[in-house]
């Protein structure tokens, strides 16, 4: 049964990574760069857990500087690295920490000192300047500090890591569930899997298996007989339909509810709440009306205009924090990460779990994990992820990229360069079909959709949304979902499956709409009902 893993058996790998979040994708890239043969298995799609359900904030570390200096230092180091290697995923917005009249005025001093100690460039600026920079910020602010926060697209980041791994020979299996571990005595040798779309069952073998299951890591470890204790903390957020702010705006006080407003691509996001939830509730987290009210009320203190700005969606994610002591909100638990070697911990060989951490520090987590794997596998290659740009990020600014490709780019081409970075070079075709827009809100073209299907493992409409922003605009996929369904159907040829996919996509959009179902959102929802039920007959 057990074979030498260095033979060419296609089902045998050096490393299998379970989990297609940013930690898994980052680890696969690092392993692939060090020459390991890898397979990443994800039960759903990329970035479906905490990776895709947060603010999309590239922390400067300032938020943690006062309470968690270790995380703060990690954040600022990684922040600087990611700006270089993941330029096309990052919008260098800068960040502000504002003090409002009701906030403790002394906190700003403590905050700035802590930032500087952690190596974060925190600069106190004149409140008047802050008001000028951000016309929508609460004009009553009494203090403002500028920090190097930025906005980062987690889907793009995750996809780019995975793509790089694939370009280096890594394999990715999405929509594939690990149903059990193949064990030989106290050693984990492989996994049983099942494809959720085709029902196909496969076994894969590896010298080491990495559990990067995020909040599901506890469950995965348990299947192998190992123990992890996680602290799932739910956080709810609201997406507003357009950017009202230029900088990331934070409250300069102890972290609390709805005190960060992040401009992300064409929208802005306010969040979060924080409350502990049972582990078995992590699969279906819903945003409650109370959370929605709290987010709008508190968010409006950052930017009063939010109380009368159209809301696109409400969503919630679960932070996979590491359990330490009793803390009902989880606000005081470290944002640091731990790597659990189950061999030394539980006596189970061949299994490593990586838990906790943050989007901002994913690369460091991946590096440390891969270091451990390499030590175990006798690989002496150095980590290069901090200096080697991700595919798409080789050229820097999207303006430059767009200019290089098209000379006088159209808005849709500019948008493609913004999203894809240098990968947009593939879009330069003379084919007159490719430029047609599928999603007009976000300006996603046929070429970009087909590229995501062909090269980025997108097999459902929701997969396409994560990779291209299809259906992320104000209409939430009214017409574009149908157009893209036509393109997907052409690629896999199964209409029944695509019809079901369309249903699921609309359901998923509605899930985020009805908690904020009033005003223009309700008008849009009604229109979508007409179009799909009465006009198209879905």
């Amino acid at each position, binding site marked *: 049964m057990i074979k030498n893993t260095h033979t060419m058996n296609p089902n045998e790998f050096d490393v299998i990574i379970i989990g297609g979040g940013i930690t898994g994708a980052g680890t696969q890239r690092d392993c692939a760069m060090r020459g390991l043969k890898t397979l990443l298995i994800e039960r759903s799609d990329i970035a479906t857990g905490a990776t895709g359900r947060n603010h999309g904030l590239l922390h400067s570390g300032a938020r943690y500087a006062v309470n968690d200096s270790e995380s703060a230092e990690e954040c600022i180091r990684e922040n600087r690295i990611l700006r270089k290697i993941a330029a096309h995923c990052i919008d260098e917005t800068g960040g502000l920490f504002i003090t409002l009249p009701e906030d403790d005025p002394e906190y700003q001093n403590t905050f700035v000192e802590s930032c500087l100690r952690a190596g974060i460039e925190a600069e106190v600026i004149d409140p008047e300047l802050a008001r000028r920079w951000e016309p929508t910020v609460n004009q009553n602010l009494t203090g403002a500090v500028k920090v190097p926060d930025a906005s980062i697209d987690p889907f793009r980041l995750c996809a780019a890591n995975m793509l790089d791994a694939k370009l280096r020979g890594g394999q990715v299996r999405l929509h594939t569930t690990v149903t059990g571990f193949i064990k030989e005595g106290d050693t984990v040798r492989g996994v049983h899997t099942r494809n959720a779309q085709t029902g196909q069952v496969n076994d894969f073998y590896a010298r080491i298996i990495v559990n990067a299951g995020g909040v599901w890591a506890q469950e995965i470890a348990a299947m192998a007989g190992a123990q992890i204790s996680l602290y799932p903390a739910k956080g709810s957020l609201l997406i507003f339909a357009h950017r009202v702010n230029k900088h990331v705006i934070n409250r300069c006080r102890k972290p609390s509810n709805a005190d960060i407003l992040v401009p992300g691509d064409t929208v802005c996001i306010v969040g979060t709440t924080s409350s502990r939830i049972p582990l078995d509730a992590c699969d279906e987290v819903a945003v409650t*009306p109370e959370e929605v009210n709290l987010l709008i009320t508190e968010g409006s203190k950052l930017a009063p205009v939010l109380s009368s700005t159209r809301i696109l969606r409400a969503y919630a994610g679960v932070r996979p924090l590491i359990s330490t002591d009793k803390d009902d909100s989880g606000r005081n638990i470290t944002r640091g990460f731990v790597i659990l070697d189950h061999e030394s911990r539980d006596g189970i060989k061949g299994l490593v779990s990586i838990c906790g951490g943050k989007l901002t520090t994913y690369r460091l987590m991946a590096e440390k994990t891969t270091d451990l794997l390499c030590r175990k596998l006798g690989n002496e290659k150095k980590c290069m992820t901090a200096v080697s740009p991700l595919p798409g990020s080789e050229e820097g600014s999207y303006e430059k990229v767009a200019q290089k490709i098209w000379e006088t780019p159209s808005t849709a081409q500019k948008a493609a360069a913004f999203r894809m970075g240098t990968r947009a070079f593939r879009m330069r075709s003379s084919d007159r079909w490719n430029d*047609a827009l599928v999603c007009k809100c976000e300006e996603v*073209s046929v070429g970009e959709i087909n590229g995501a299907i062909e090269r980025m493992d997108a097999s459902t409409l929701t997969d396409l949304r994560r990779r291209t922003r299809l259906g992320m605009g104000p209409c939430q996929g009214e017409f574009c979902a*149908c157009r893209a369904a036509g393109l997907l159907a052409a690629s896999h040829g199964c209409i029944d499956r695509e019809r079901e996919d369309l249903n699921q996509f609309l359901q998923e*959009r509605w899930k985020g709409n009805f908690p904020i179902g009033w005003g223009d959102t309700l008008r849009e929802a009604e229109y979508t009902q007409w179009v799909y039920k009465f006009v198209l007959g879905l």
Partner: protein
Amino acid sequence: MRFDTVIIGGGLAGLTAGIALQREGKSTAIISTGQNALHFFSGSFESVVEKNERMIDFFAKAGIPLHYAPGVRLMPLGSFRPSALCLEDTDIFPTAKVGSKVLIVNFMGYHDFFSTFLAEGLEKEGMQCRIRLLDLPELEPLQRSPGGMRSVQMARILDPIWEKFVQEVRLLIKDEDIVVIPQVFGLKDPSTPGLIREDLPVRAIFAGTLPPSVPGIRTQQLLGRNYERLGGTYLKGDHALRALTKDNRIIGVSTKNLDRHYLKADTFILASGSYFSKGLRSNPFEITEPVFDLDVNYSPERSDWYNPKFAADQPYMHYGVKTDENLHAIKGGTVIQNLYAIGSVMGVSHPRFGFGAGLAIRSAFHVTDQIVQESKV
């Protein structure tokens, strides 16, 4: 400005009421906030199952021929739905087995027509399907424009060259007995689809596309034109703001464009539609009717408004203004004798008048009959 009747809302319900009253010699004005749901009209008069001679005659007089043939029609994503009364270029069949071999024709670069979905739907009903794409050079400018290949723009180019289109389709037909064509013909001239049908050697079916709907826009324009030719005052792009009331009667309505110039009338008809057209407004706390502040039938508990399943019936769509049995509107529990509500401002469906086009037209007839009757007394 004075009228016999002022109608708020220029969709199917409002236009039907306006035309009906103008034909009875009444002077009317329609206040229309932009265009309306006719732009997404499927071509089938939903919820009309009987052979409604009055409707058929009513539309014929406006230059819109309808045909009645209870059966099923082919939906854009390949399913079949019951239908009975339709625009002339919408096809109804006795059963879903419309033929034996089907050729589905689409245009290169047109993503708003779902040929593969249609093929699968037809194959489920036991037909053999073949899909072919036409690449007409006349469409090239649209193909090169990122948002160019859309139904209306295509219809503008295709209508004048329909004969060429027919020639191209003839070349594609092998042994098929049915050809399915996107509904991108007949924007201005309702006869174009008929001419295409006559010229093709096999039966042609026009299947729907993503909105805007070409036959829907044509219908809207014909109705609007008919209304204006009958002497109706069609206030386009304006919207009603406030009402002037006296002794529980409406005296006048002010509009955005006319400042303090009130439109006065003996009777008023509210045909302002549902949420989409802002006939109903919602915020986190309430659902209201903005012009007259009429009583709205809805649950005060917001969580009752929605069904978390998208595909399920949505409670909020059933909310609407309250009326008495003759469709007089109700405010503060009191019936307003010279204000009527018609169409979807009453909610998506009505126990007596049905839903969709049926609801709009039937409730409009019901109210205009009363107004005409009352004026004779």
